[in-house]
């Protein structure tokens, strides 16, 4: 029990919220494209570009918020390129997404080399991190539970507030409704004179906005540094969560919290001296197991049909010898 107490406490939950924030933001961004019927595998690249240019911007301007703006702008450029290729030129979305991911990875490395003359990471150099928001009165009201709501960087709050806002967006605004219609039944949208192209561009850019914020949070949030490939698969994990949640904000939140918790938990385990390479696999194992369990439950029909087909094939082999005979 003592060990459990040490493992699970307020600090762990606060850490969960912190680690959830970037993946939640990028997944919510992807929710726009998912709902609009675009399979956006380029989230990883947008996030990475956001992280890099946020650092760059904060060094140039000396302001964390200007850095965030730079990061968002970079991610928007990536999102725009994605939209131009996928929506206007109808290129394959997986190919374009992967290409942009590789571009982001390579571009950040070579720019790092060109500007800072280093490889690996940018530390110090005058990077300004985001301030932490201390909610006044939080300690007075919640006592030792205060870290649950206070002391995060602004982007963490943005991430969690975005969830109910997106629920409202999809259910009560015209754009949200049109995004859903375009994704679900494009011919209905077309028949009603809704421009599919315009809606998909808008969804792509909204996605870039949130992915850029997520990237900026990575590099200016709790650690103020940029390292090569620092998004480390979060964009892909977001894609996985999107597939299983179908882009519904609440389900996205649930999936991201699970992943964030596993991430925070693994960090905690590291302090107990377990081998770090094993511990680092924990979030991925947890997330994959959960997603598999979900998909297994959500798709019994496919499994049932497969079983039925196999049964039919087996019994057909036995019962219908004459019909199986091929004249030659």
């Amino acid at each position, binding site marked *: 029990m003592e060990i459990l107490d040490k493992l699970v406490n307020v600090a762990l939950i606060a850490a969960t919220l912190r680690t959830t924030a970037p993946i939640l933001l990028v997944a919510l961004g992807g929710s726009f494209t998912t709902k609009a019927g675009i399979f956006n595998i380029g989230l990883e690249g947008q996030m990475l570009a956001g992280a890099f240019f946020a650092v760059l911007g904060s060094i140039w301007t000396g302001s964390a918020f200007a850095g965030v703006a730079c990061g968002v702008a970079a991610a928007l450029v990536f999102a725009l390129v994605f939209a131009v290729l996928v929506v206007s030129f109808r290129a394959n979305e997986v190919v374009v997404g992967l290409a942009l991911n590789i571009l982001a990875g390579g571009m950040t490395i070579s720019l790092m080399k060109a500007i800072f003359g280093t490889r690996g990471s940018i530390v110090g150099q005058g990077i300004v991190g985001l301030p932490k928001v201390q909610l006044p009165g939080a300690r007075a009201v919640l006592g030792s539970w205060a870290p649950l709501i206070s002391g995060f960087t602004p982007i963490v709050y943005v991430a969690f507030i975005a969830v109910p806002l997106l629920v409202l967006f999809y259910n009560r605004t015209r754009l949200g*409704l049109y995004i859903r219609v375009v994704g679900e039944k494009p011919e*209905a949208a077309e028949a009603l004179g809704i421009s599919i192209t315009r809606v998909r561009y808008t969804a792509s850019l909204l996605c870039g906005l949130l992915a850029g914020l997520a990237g900026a949070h990575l590099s200016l949030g709790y650690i103020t540094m940029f390292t090569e490939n620092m998004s480390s698969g979060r964009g892909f994990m977001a894609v996985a969560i999107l597939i299983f949640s179908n882009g519904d904000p609440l389900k996205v939140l649930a999936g991201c919290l699970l992943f964030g918790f596993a991430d925070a938990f693994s960090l905690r385990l590291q302090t107990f001296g377990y081998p770090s390479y094993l511990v680092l696999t924990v979030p991925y194992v947890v997330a994959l197991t959960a997603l598999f369990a979900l998909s297994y439950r959500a798709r019994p029909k496919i499994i049932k049909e497969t079983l039925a087909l196999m049964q039919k094939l087996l019994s057909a082999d036995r019962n219908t010898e004459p*019909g199986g005979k091929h004249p030659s």
Partner: protein
Amino acid sequence: MVSNAPGSSTRHNVSTGHNLAGPNLAGMAVALTGITKRFGAFVANDGIDLAVRRGEIHAIIGENGAGKTTLMNILFGLLQPDEGSIRLNDEETDVADPAVAIKAGLGMVHQHFKLVPSLSVADNVFLGMEIRRHGLIDHAAQIARTRELSERFGLRVDPTERVGLLSVGIEQRIEILKVLVRGARTIILDEPTAVLTPQESRELFQTLRSFVAEGMTVIFISHHLEEVMEVSDTVTVLRNGKRVATRPTAELTKDELVRMMVGREVSFDRRPREPQRGEVVLEVEELWARDDRRLPALRDVNFTVRSGEVVGIAGVAGNGQTELAEVLSGLRPASHGVARLKGRNLAAFSPAEIRAAGLAHVPGDRMARGVDRNASIAANMLMGRQHRAPWSRGGVLNWNVIGQNASKLIKDFDIRAQGSSDAVKRLSGGNIQKVVLAREFTNGADFLLIDQPTRGVDIGAQEAIHDEIMRQRAAGRAILLISVQLDELAALADRILVMFNGRIMGEVAGDDADEDRIGMMMAGVAAPEFAAETA
């Protein structure tokens, strides 16, 4: 054919069509004059005049391919006519796109619904013209308005339900509500009853009457006689892209309507034949099947086909012929009853096994199921026999043999192509069909299932295809010929079975094919001797 339009009174109507100018057109909700629409060499609408009075239910009736849907698409701005003019509410209008038609108070309920499954009924109704308050969609107001309209016109729906969970009949009501919400005063329905149960059809007719009671106008496309007689005030009959007649429904009998629809002078150029009576190859007993919507498509179908015999299936398209062909070729399960090919129950076999057991299938949709349009003629002629010698040995294809075989078939079947390596998509419709026939007829199968062999095929190729079918008959094959073209059946079939609404309404010997009787049965009117059976 049309020059032999029935009755002098209808001729009178046709001839006055072009003179409908001036005062006659006043009070018309819709007036089309001299509408002509061509698709390539095919004339879908040929100088059609149509005047629809405000406040009437005007039925447009005709067989598939008569040009009904084309005409309505022109009226609604989905197609542009090559010739002719359109007046909406007494004003000459250029209906460049549907937005113009909607603005003029027209609304169209298509055959295929375009609803969003995850949205509620009310959301779907108001999609594209949402009611908003403070920038947010006002769901309560949309629900209230939908409910009000649905009660006023007897369109029973629950505005809050998700569309994905609803039946086709209710989906249609939602499509009608969509049209109403957009302020339509003239409502066009394209074959609305095709997807409905009889009960739902009756409710729809009630709704249509309530529209008219409020001074609205209804244009109603159909090929079902009974419902046209029941619900319409005026009928316009189209045939082969031309208007045959426009008459008040009360003055018409079903009999007259059938004759106008089917046409009197079908060219019965009957092929000479030797009588043959072989053994039974195909036996169908009490066969039932459902369509893709899970509604019954075949109802208690019974017949046999003997070797050396051509059995024709007549009927207006969509009365179960497609499903029958699919069941016989193993593409659709029967829900009840059996089909036996040479004594073996087909239900236990896959399509490949049925073919191996002696079926050749010329599918009705040749581009979807007959050929791979991007592959070469040789590859298309190989399909289905690629596992067998001499076409392949040890899993390796022998392209020499395949190519030689294809070249031979190209010559035998007179396929006009550069060579066997030509892609099928470069051929004309008739030649593509000959590729299918060449493959299927040389398979050594005893039973030929031939579905619409000459659809979209030019006259020369039609003759050749008919010759080939007769050769197969002479060779002792058992042939089931499904066609919507009466003259084709009358020319080739030994016996003609007429399908309506999934049932065989009756049988006519090919030798005395009486188009009146067939036409009546095609329209669902049981011939007296079959009345008991269909009751």
